[in-house]
């Protein structure tokens, strides 16, 4: 259309020119986009006339114009630019700048269908290449943090490659997976995290979404609501992250050929460490001891709490040779060494027979433990198309080496994608793409710790690290005994030396992954198209979890040396057959119509197989033959989903758009209730197109109102309908046993249903403010509890059931304001996004409380009237009027059940709201971006805080010589309450009434945090400078991530980062079990285009 129109214009122009007498000039030049690439098809008009032209394929144009006139350059998606013509002007080369808030934006919707944004009756967030590439984070999921409203990303910790959780519009359900679906170039992409063991024993695995190379991404569209995702069926119920890669989108190219190379190097450091106090050392109740805790004497000699009064330190007690200010070396006095390694212990004695001495002074080994990692990446993209546009190709190669701040942690990734397409005839075209990814992840073990070593049977690198007493420097204490076993300061050697863990305990995942698709399009005519697309995504993940013998986990198997190897294979096969009809118009083009009908089948097959070995024979020899005992690791799961779907779209005069869609799914793992139909409908109205009166240049520029209704469902996973028997060939010694499984199948399990209404407004005001507001409500019915605890007295512990209802609602607001716009080349933009989502459990059947994550006495549960995800556990005992009860010794009493005889509510981990502020300044080629995140509210059960406080390590506990009185009341035998006035000492206060208390409530903290998420400073070389070079564009960017944060309601000295999840990518939330700190990254990138 555009071409024809301008052709007519040109004709008219030619006529007009004949009648003109003014001084006429021919102006020519090149128009390029903000990245310096030639921009074809730019409308170039002489202001106030009909005189104009368009730029050609290479961005060149020629136009005739009078001196004194002004040329206007306009192009969809770019700011309109004007240039005056003077007598001297002969050549105008112009670099147009992109308009971030494009009204006529085209977005990718379900199944890769591109639609004009104005036609959509639901919210879609688009994130452009610029916001993603050259980021210090190598993990795409983390790059998305804070980029738009309605999406919540939690990382296990800051370790390179650790798992993430991606939740869109809050959790829907407490069973199954709440993580969003990734779709890469139309192909469903597995983002599973296959952690080693469960969250207690091993939380080390990475998420398979890590396999995506962020630098190969052109665009991400996030479908949040159910009206948007209906066509994905059950798989799309948690929202869909649609990724268009550069190699996969060659058809959109502007130029014939593009080559892009980008390379970067970033430093990766631990984001912050606790502020340790240096006044007191290891011990308890002010007495010295080789303890876990740091409640020992001061590092000063005289006065209250000084070491001068401690026999072990004042040179007047203990072993011969004692001097004041020193203590006998822990290895000289270790009872463990005396019992097991007397010869080694002898080396810790001097020639005169006295024990070697260890200085009593503060030390800083924890600070030295972390290193500065380096993140190096290179990424190249080649793509091009033939002159006639019939053939196109793409290729990309990327390599990343991300070295964590924790010794032993590293992840490398190599991606290679090749893609291409061809139009074979006018009717038939084919397209395909294939990506190979190799990911190699290594980490020391990360596991839950409750504040005294690892909680489970394995090791944990952070489990014993942060609360190292200040008098201990683990670099000064050798970690290896002559036979390689771990040795550390504690008398009974109950703690595994952190350096021993780094050297001897390892977890690795090596992944080989191939994913790709092939599609065939057949155009019956201009309107009707038939497409088949087949795709496959398969990975083979080789896991190794090993530890040399001689560890000190307290688990006899682990300490004998373990070597566990297993392979996870996952295969997703997906077929889609779609018949679509577009561009039908009726009633003189007043009414438009399009339709689509399709069928799809998806199979997911997961197999795990491997061997556990223990009892290592030769230290540091890892092969199964070198171990005495062997066991198996095996698990299989397979599920198919078949679906048919359809969509009808209508528009009237381009101002009202109506869309109806529906999908029916069938799943393979249940016999009954295995199918469901999900309808959805949405409408979009553009009042500014109807009532042109309300539209003005300096008022309302654009207004869109939308409303959508969508449904989806979640089917039970696994094998929910069958009851089986566990067979154990070593039921006792050599006898095989079979025992009834504690899970009993439910043949009547139904899918859970989601119903959502969403309403939105999109507006542009004053040519500089864009607003996008969404409000939604959602109801989840028939919730599936995949392993619902049932009364043990029924003879089973779990079943799958459907119960209850959850109501949720939320607001997503995005505002984008150009404070300064093209004012002397200076742009200043502020973008804000705001998310709040609230939920309420309204029905859970006959149950009082369903604990679905964590432990049965502390975890996330569902209880009527409380938000989904609430933490339930034991609390401080209360009187009937809610006063806290303190016992006779001055300590809090605890209680499990509350006044309703139900496990007590401790807090809601869901934030009240999340706001992200992004400031962007641009001046000529320079740009500066600052992004700040504010998460307000929500609670976290933090073992990190609890332990550091309870063991007396941080500056928060430095003032400790006075006594404390807990606020609360004493209750006497007759139930009479009096205000508590019993004084307790520091260890009672922080330790007994902190993390060692049975009342879990004492470790609940507010998780609000303000974070300087990103600062980046970029410079794009001017096109002029590049004229003589082969480069089309050169951009330098320095950026820094997570340089500062403040969880302002947690104790100051801890510097705790609440964006952590000890429960991996599962449905648990708000728990930290010494899971590890976050990372900060800073460095440089260079991006070159040819």
């Amino acid at each position, binding site marked *: 259309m555009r071409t024809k129109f301008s052709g007519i214009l040109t004709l008219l122009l030619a006529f007009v020119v004949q009648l003109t007498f003014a001084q006429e000039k021919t102006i020519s030049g090149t128009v390029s986009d903000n990245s310096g690439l030639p921009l074809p098809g730019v409308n170039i008009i002489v202001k106030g006339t009909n005189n104009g032209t368009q730029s050609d394929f290479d961005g060149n144009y020629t136009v005739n114009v009078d001196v004194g006139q002004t040329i206007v350059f306009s192009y969809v998606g770019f700011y309109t630019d004007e240039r005056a013509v003077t007598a001297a002007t002969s050549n105008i080369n112009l670099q147009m700048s992109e308009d971030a808030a494009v009204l006529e934006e085209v977005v990718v919707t379900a199944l890769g269908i591109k639609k004009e944004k104005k036609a959509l009756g639901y919210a879609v967030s688009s994130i452009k290449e610029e916001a993603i590439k050259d980021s210090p984070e190598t993990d795409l999921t983390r790059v998305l943090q804070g980029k738009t409203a309605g999406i919540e990303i939690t990382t296990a910790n800051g370790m390179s490659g650790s798992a993430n959780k991606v939740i869109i519009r809050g959790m829907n359900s407490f069973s199954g997976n709440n993580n969003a679906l990734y779709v890469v170039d139309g192909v469903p992409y597995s983002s599973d995290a296959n952690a080693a063991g469960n969250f207690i024993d091993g939380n080390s695995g990475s998420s398979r979404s890590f396999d995506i190379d962020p630098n190969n991404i052109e665009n991400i569209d996030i479908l949040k609501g159910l009206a948007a995702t209906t066509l994905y069926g059950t798989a799309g119920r948690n929202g869909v992250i649609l990724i268009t890669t550069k190699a996969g989108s060659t058809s959109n190219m502007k130029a014939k050929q593009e080559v892009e190379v980008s390379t970067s190097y970033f430093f990766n450091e631990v984001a912050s460490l606790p502020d340790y106090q240096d006044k007191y050392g290891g011990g308890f109740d002010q007495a010295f001891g080789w303890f876990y805790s740091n409640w020992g004497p001061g590092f000063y000699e005289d006065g209250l709490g000084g070491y001068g009064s401690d026999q072990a330190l004042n040179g007047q007690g203990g072993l011969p040779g004692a001097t004041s200010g020193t203590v006998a070396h822990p290895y000289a006095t270790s009872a463990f060494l005396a019992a097991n390694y007397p010869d080694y212990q002898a080396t810790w004695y001097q020639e005169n027979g006295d024990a070697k001495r260890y200085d009593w002074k503060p030390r800083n080994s924890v600070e030295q433990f972390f290193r500065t990692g380096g993140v190096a990446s290179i990424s190249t993209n080649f793509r091009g198309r033939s002159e006639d546009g019939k053939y196109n190709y793409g290729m990309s190669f990327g390599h990343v080496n991300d070295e964590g701040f924790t010794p032993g942690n590293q992840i490398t990734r190599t991606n290679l994608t090749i893609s291409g397409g061809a139009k074979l005839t006018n009717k038939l075209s084919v397209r395909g793409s294939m990506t190979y990814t190799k990911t190699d992840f290594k980490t020391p073990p990360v596991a839950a710790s409750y504040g005294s070593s690892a909680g489970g049977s394995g090791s944990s690198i952070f489990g014993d690290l942060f609360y190292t007493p200040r008098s201990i420097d683990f670099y000064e204490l050798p970690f290896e005994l002559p036979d390689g076993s771990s040795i550390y300061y504690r008398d009974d050697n109950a703690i595994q030396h952190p350096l021993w863990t780094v050297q001897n305990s390892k977890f690795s995942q090596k992944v080989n992954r191939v994913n790709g698709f092939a599609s065939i399009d057949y155009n019956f005519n201009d309107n009707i198209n038939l497409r088949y697309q087949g795709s496959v995504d398969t990975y083979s993940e080789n896991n190794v979890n090993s530890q040399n013998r001689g560890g000190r986990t307290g688990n006899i198997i682990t300490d004998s040396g373990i070597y566990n190897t297993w392979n996870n294979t996952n295969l997703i096969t997906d077929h889609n057959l779609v018949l679509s009809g577009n561009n039908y118009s009726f009633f003189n083009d007043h009414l438009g119509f399009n339709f689509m009908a399709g069928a799809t089948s998806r199979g997911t097959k997961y197999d795990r197989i491997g061997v556990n070995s223990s009892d290592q024979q030769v230290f540091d020899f890892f092969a199964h033959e070198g171990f005495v005992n062997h066991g198996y690791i095996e698990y299989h799961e397979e599920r198919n989903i078949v679906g048919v779907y359809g969509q009808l779209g209508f528009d009237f005069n381009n101002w009202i758009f109506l869309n109806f869609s529906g999908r029916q799914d069938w799943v393979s793992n249940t016999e009954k209730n295995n199918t469901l139909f999900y309808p959805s409908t949405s409408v979009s109205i553009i009042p500014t197109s109807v009532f042109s009166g309300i539209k003005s240049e300096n008022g309302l520029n654009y207004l869109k109102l939308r409303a959508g209704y969508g449904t989806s469902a979640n089917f039970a996973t696994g094998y929910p309908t069958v009851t089986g028997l566990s067979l154990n060939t070593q039921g006792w010694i050599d006898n095989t046993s079979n025992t009834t499984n504690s899970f009993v199948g439910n043949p009547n399990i139904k899918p859970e249903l989601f119903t959502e209404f969403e309403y939105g407004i999109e507006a542009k005001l004053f040519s500089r403010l864009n607003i996008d507001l969404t409000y939604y409500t959602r109801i989840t019915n028939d919730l599936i509890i995949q392993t619902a605890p049932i009364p*043990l007295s029924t003879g089973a512990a779990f079943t799958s059931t459907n119960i209850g209802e959850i109501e949720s609602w939320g607001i997503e607001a995005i505002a984008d304001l150009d404070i300064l716009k093209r004012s002397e080349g200076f742009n200043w933009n502020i973008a804000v996004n705001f998310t709040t989502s609230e939920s309420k459990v309204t029905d859970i059947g006959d149950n009082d409380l369903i604990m679905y994550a964590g432990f049965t006495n502390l975890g996330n549960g569902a209880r009527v009237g409380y938000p989904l995800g609430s933490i339930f556990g034991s609390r401080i005992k209360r009187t009937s009027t809610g006063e806290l009860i303190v016992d006779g010794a001055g300590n809090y009493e605890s209680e499990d059940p509350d006044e309703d005889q139900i496990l007590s509510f401790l807090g809601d981990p869901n934030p009240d709201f999340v706001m992200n502020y992004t400031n962007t300044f641009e001046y000529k080629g320079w740009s500066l971006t600052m992004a700040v995140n504010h998460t307000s509210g929500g609670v976290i059960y933090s073992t990190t805080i609890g332990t550091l406080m309870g063991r007396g390590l941080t500056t928060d506990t430095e003032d400790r010589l006075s006594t404390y009185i807990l606020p609360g009341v004493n209750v006497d035998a007759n139930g009479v309450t009096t205000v508590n006035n019993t004084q307790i000492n520091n260890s009672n206060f922080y330790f007994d009434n902190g993390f060692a208390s049975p009342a879990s409530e004492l470790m609940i903290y507010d998780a609000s945090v303000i974070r300087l998420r990103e600062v980046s400073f970029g410079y794009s070389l001017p096109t002029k400078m590049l004229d003589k070079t082969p480069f089309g564009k050169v951009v330098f960017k320095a950026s820094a991530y997570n340089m500062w944060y403040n969880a302002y309601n947690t104790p100051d000295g801890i510097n705790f980062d609440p964006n952590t999840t000890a429960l991996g990518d599962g449905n648990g939330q708000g728990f930290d079990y010494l899971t590890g700190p976050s990372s900060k990254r800073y460095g440089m990138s260079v991006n070159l285009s040819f």
Partner: protein
Amino acid sequence: MKNLNKISVLLILLLGLTFTSCETTDLDLINDPNQITVENGDLERYMVAIQVDFARFASTMGSNGARLVRIEQMSAGSYVNAFEPIFTNYEWRLAYVNMFSDMKNAANLAIEKGSRGNHIAVMKILKAYTLITLVDYFGDVPRSEANDLSNFPAPSVDPGADVYAFAIATLTEARQELDLLGNLNLGTDYYYNNNFDQWKKLANTLLMQAYVNTNNTAAFNALANGNNFISETADDFVWEYTALINDEIDARAPGYQYDYTSGGATSYKSDYLMNAMLKDDAGIGSDGDPRRRYYFFRQNDCTPGALKDYTVAPEVEGNQCAVDPERLFCSTSPRPAHYPGSEMVYCSVDNGYWGRDHGFGGGIPPDTFKRTAYGVYPYAGNFDDNRFSSVGLGQGGGGAGITPIYLASWSHLMRAEMALANGGEAGTHLRKAMEISIAKVMSFGSKDGDANLATTDDGGFVPTTTTVNNYINTKMSNFGSGNAEYKWNTLGEQHLVAHYGNGSNSYNYYRRTGYPHTLQWTVEPAPGGFVRSLFYPADEANVNPNILQKPNVGVQVFWDNNPPSSAAGTGFPYAN
């Protein structure tokens, strides 16, 4: 070009075919490949699982009772905290989810296959024991609505008395099943090796025990006089462990698993029991109870704050062990104000016994190479021959010990109690109980291959027959001349000592009689009232709308007719 068009249409059709015939459209993937189906269950394999689970149940329940009556150390300051609802999930699961479910399936198989009366009888006996034990600890528990998920998704509790009646009937049925003709042996009978006379004795003994709890003297006497109960050590009902450990199974005795590690001993022994067995009664020599060297293995010969040898005066050089704030902090603290006179042991036991007081739950100092460990009885650790060395992996009997579930000595204690309560002759039964208990315990000495098993006469530490006889005679003489309280205390003390390894019976005894009064008090001043029954397990009460959690642990089981315990720690029993 036209050809190409046709080809492409054909191609699309072909693809459509692949699509429809593809394995991704298979919608019948119902069965779980990771487990066998119920149809593949096998009777003998069920019997293995049931017997193993039963031993675990008896052992863990026995440990709960033991901690309450100071046979073992209780490590939380208050009774409520020591027995939080979550702590008994495992036991409850063993009973209902494992054993009862398996029994239900296995009984069907046994009936199908015919002539399997022995299998049914064994299951009935084990089930009756389990039900009785559940009532004894929890009070009213689900029975009639249990293990019937489709009809009772949330079973209600049955009154404890009804469950008792049912269990008593079940034991009676079991005896009849054992007499059926054509009964086959079990594939593996871990307890009695297919000696069904012994199973019958066990059934009778359990009936007697139930009658003692319910104070049914007539029924008790009838069985006692029938003399077909566990009365000799050969009939002892025990679970035997072995020294095996690998990735799949740790078959070592539980106490051994705790204490014989490369990092030292990880459990604390009861200060009360060690002190009582060391010092014992007036007239007993410095050796104390002949069983103490078998029960406890000392790694250390001088416990901070105590005497190295309590028979030597404290003033003697070196006899007073220095306090140690690092490893035994309480050795530096004064006795709790609420403890009565100095006869009640506090913190440090003499002669190197290193344990913890009842209800002490402080942090763990580095004392694992100092603590007293389990000995050679019942968990097959080390015999204490004054070697005072550190424990370690594989030492002593390697963990090839036992969990006692019903011992002959206990039958005699039961008879002594009934006699004492009803004015009969208790002494003979008590004597018999002591004799066979001491003999059994001493027979374990040889499990420790490294021990010096010479008798005290030969410079070793194994009590001589004379010593043992003297001990028993002295005890009996004191018992004979003592008043009623003294008698009950003595019987109670002997009850606790004989039940080392399984405190279930002693916990019942303590609630029946309130004796011994000599028990150590809880070291925390306000421990709350004594546990008269446990909370329901969290996994049951939290999800069963028909079972409300108990308000406290003071709820009495149906046969417990003693006065209530008060939250202030007064009331029944005497020692709180």
